[in-house]
């Protein structure tokens, strides 16, 4: 029969942890706390980043011109909302994918705020620079986590 060293204080908690680890190892399970990499999410977010950048570049080119108004660019906002909705719904359908789901919802909020800004007035180059940074930070955050889910695949 195995003897186990009981001299260590707080041994009970440690022993339970080790037993749990052994049980998991026995069952052949590896622990997975976060969902796996999803190529569709990766592609969709990357495509949306490209579309958003194209929108910002277009706005820069029409600064102070009549074409800069929100009404001339409404199509981008309508399409982007659909894109983000698809990303969010897909993310929410994947188990253990809470962080990416919440980030997708924040991305939707970013788009709403950009739309509100554009409805107030045409965006100056300075504002576009700010918006570009906000969005690139947001897109990078989502993609960085998605790539990390690859786990050496």
């Amino acid at each position, binding site marked *: 029969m195995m003897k186990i*060293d009981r001299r260590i204080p707080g041994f009970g908690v*440690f*022993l339970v942890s*080790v037993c749990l680890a*052994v049980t998991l190892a026995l069952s052949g399970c590896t622990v997975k706390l976060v969902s796996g990499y999803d190529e569709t999410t990766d592609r969709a977010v990357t495509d949306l980043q490209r579309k958003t950048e194209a929108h910002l570049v277009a706005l820069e080119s029409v600064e102070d011109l009549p074409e800069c108004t929100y009404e001339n660019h409404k199509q981008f906002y309508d399409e982007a909302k659909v894109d983000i909705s698809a990303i969010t719904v897909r993310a929410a359908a994947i188990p253990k994918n809470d962080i990416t789901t919440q980030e997708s919802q924040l991305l939707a*909020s970013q788009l709403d705020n950009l739309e509100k*800004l554009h409805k107030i007035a045409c965006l100056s180059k*300075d504002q576009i620079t700010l918006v570009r940074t906000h969005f690139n930070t947001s897109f990078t955050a989502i993609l960085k986590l998605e790539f990390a889910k690859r786990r050496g695949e």
Partner: protein
Amino acid sequence: MSLDAVKLGKDILAALNGSLAEKWPDVKDYGEAEAKKLAQTLVMIGTLKATGKINKEQAELHLEMQKNATRMVLMTIEGLGILSAEAAINSALIAVKDNVNKEIGFTLL
């Protein structure tokens, strides 16, 4: 024959440290780079408001976007941390498996 809990604990800890240390430089660099960008945009929002290039409503919307971007960076860092913990746990499981089999003298696990 006895399982050495002290040695087993040290082996698990070494596996945990190894996995976490491997991931931290990447997270640290990302966090630092994003923090720098966010600080710059915050200053820019303040400057645009102070110089009258944007009004209060516009400044508030930019700040809200800034906050959202910051939240997303923090959430990603949290996610990277969870992935690191997962890797550490799985490394510890392998360490436990190897040590238990070695101490026992046959492949139990």
